[in-house]
């Protein structure tokens, strides 16, 4: 069995349609005062059965994107439509039923209690014993786990419970926010296999945000790379990892260590200077330009590069010189 689901039959209407999403930066007063944004006009579509991976370092807005899908109150402009209906116009239980966010939970309660609470808050009848047993069976946990408290579980079991909580309402869209962060490699591998299987079996659409580019590649059909609140490259996963076109994507991929000394010794690493930027005052030209090894004096500093098709259909990059950077 492959973790990749079959490409969904593409109807023109995407399940999730995000248009020009703007989310203000929160938390830091300095940033709020400067009216800075965490997401600066993000558009993307996720089709039924498809997994869209979002790659971004800290400050990229990837986490804000995951949150803004299910929490319309965070956005100040743009649209988030599920099956053509704006998520902001749905009532809360309906939203909770159809869009589920998978992220590590920290509540202390019994597993049965947690699952029942999820169903209740989504406006669904509480599950009976058989229903609960079925839910934990999907995530490959024994029935006995239902009566146990979450604090008694191992990390791996705990994350499986999180998956069960995300699936229990029969959602249309799963938003996964770094599902394997902080897990041991062997345990993360088990969870990734589980996610891949569940997605494929249910034909679930998924928006996956992760810091680990290997994880994103493993689960995603398409990938978008976020830099400072904007998508700078979007492509089918295979094409992106084989031939990244945006300088930032290239640097990012070259920075990921590969567990093979032969590869590591031969590799040419594109070392960026400086940090991934925080959403400070909006730059005039290309946001990546100050760190870009391929920067040119003309255009880059003055003209904002639009996201445009480069090379094959469906491969977009926001770089003036994407075609001229060889690879």
């Amino acid at each position, binding site marked *: 069995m492959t973790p990749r689901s079959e490409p969904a039959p593409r109807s023109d209407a995407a399940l999730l349609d995000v248009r020009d999403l703007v989310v203000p930066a929160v938390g830091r007063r300095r940033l709020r005062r400067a009216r800075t944004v965490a997401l600066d006009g993000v558009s993307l579509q996720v089709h039924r059965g498809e997994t869209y991976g979002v790659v971004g370092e800290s400050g990229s807005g990837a986490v804000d994107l995951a949150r803004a899908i299910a929490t319309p109150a965070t956005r100040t402009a743009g649209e988030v439509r599920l099956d053509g209906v704006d998520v902001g116009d749905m009532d809360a239980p309906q939203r909770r039923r159809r869009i589920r966010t998978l992220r590590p939970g920290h509540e202390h309660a019994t597993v049965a209690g947690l699952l029942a609470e999820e169903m209740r808050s989504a406006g669904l009848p509480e599950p009976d014993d058989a229903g609960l047993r079925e839910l934990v069976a999907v995530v490959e946990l024994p029935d006995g786990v239902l009566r146990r408290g979450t604090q008694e579980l191992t990390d791996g079991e705990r994350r499986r419970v999180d998956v069960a909580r995300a699936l229990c309402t029969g959602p249309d869209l799963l938003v996964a926010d770094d599902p394997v962060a902080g897990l041991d*490699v062997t345990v993360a591998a088990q969870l990734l296999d589980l996610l891949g299987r569940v997605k494929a079996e249910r034909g679930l659409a998924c928006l996956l945000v992760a810091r680990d*580019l290997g994880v994103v590649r493993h689960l995603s059909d398409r990938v978008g790379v976020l830099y400072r609140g904007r998508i700078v490259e979007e492509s089918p996963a295979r094409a992106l990892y084989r031939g990244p076109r945006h300088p930032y994507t290239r640097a990012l991929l070259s920075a*990921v260590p590969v567990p093979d000394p*032969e590869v590591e010794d031969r590799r040419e690493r594109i070392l960026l*200077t400086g940090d991934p930027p925080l959403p400070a005052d909006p730059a005039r030209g290309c946001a990546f330009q100050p760190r870009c090894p391929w920067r040119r004096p003309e255009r880059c500093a003055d003209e904002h590069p639009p996201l445009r098709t480069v090379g094959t259909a469906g491969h977009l990059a926001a770089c003036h010189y994407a075609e001229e950077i060889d690879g």
Partner: protein
Amino acid sequence: MLLEVRDLRVVFRRRGRPDAVAVDGVSFDVPAGQVVGLVGESGSGRSALVMAVMRLLPRRGVRVEGQVLLDGVDLLTLGDAEMRERRGRDLSMVLLRPRSGLNPMIPLGPQLTGALRRHRGMARAPAREAAVELLDRVGIADPRGGLAAYPHQLSVSARSRALIAVAAAGGPRLLVADEPTAALDVTTQAQILTLLRELVRETGAALLMTTHDLGVVAGTCETVNVLYGGRIVERAQRHRLFGTPRHPYTHGLLGAIPRLDGPPAPALATISGSGRDRLPWARSCAFAPRCSRALPVCSEVSPAVDTSGGRLLRCHNPVPASAE
């Protein structure tokens, strides 16, 4: 040999429960000027091992046995005052915690010159100059201005660099780094690893690095020790270890990583269960309950150490060398 660790055991006493053996008889060497890696997941004893080498474990409730020889001197037998003197000067811990490793109330300058004056006996003015040099060396853009900066004014990358500068200030021959890049972004991680490698090459200091990320190890460490349940289960030079991993745990660990090179793997979960499912080393192989190659003997007899072929291996039924 710069550092020789011999039969190190770290045992935590627990109230009302049997003692927890975190490190169960570990021996390894760190030659001068080399980078040695310790790989292990949670529960492998990785952190306890490093803390024992640095003598940073509390005395109460912890028993540390064995030898930690630095240039032939057993650190475990030194008095507290002498150990404080050596820490920072002879061996130094790189505390790469960009959010908590520096004192937030004190500018960078005094945090650096303090180490220089203490360990190298420098006067105020030369220490200041040496601090500027250090900050320049680790790649801080404006080293002179950096001295006056408080940690919160610096970026995560700059703070990580400053922490490396603090560790290197005393001119130690051994740097110890526990999970140096765990909290960093990928592009920052690449910068920091490059810096650590350069520093080792230039100063001739050795680096003992622990990590759970085999990718970090592959490009950085000359010798790699794989820890499981408090013992080293496999050790080899990195090309040999990654080229032909013989221990089923090493083999499975490599297969469990979603990789960027090569075709996507159909499935990752090559090892079932978690680190909690383990047997006592004394009369079995700790890894046996999770091992796909386990034989009946694995849960009855503790596997002996085999050091043939330039590799240390602790396994009854290793992966055949030709399997790769």
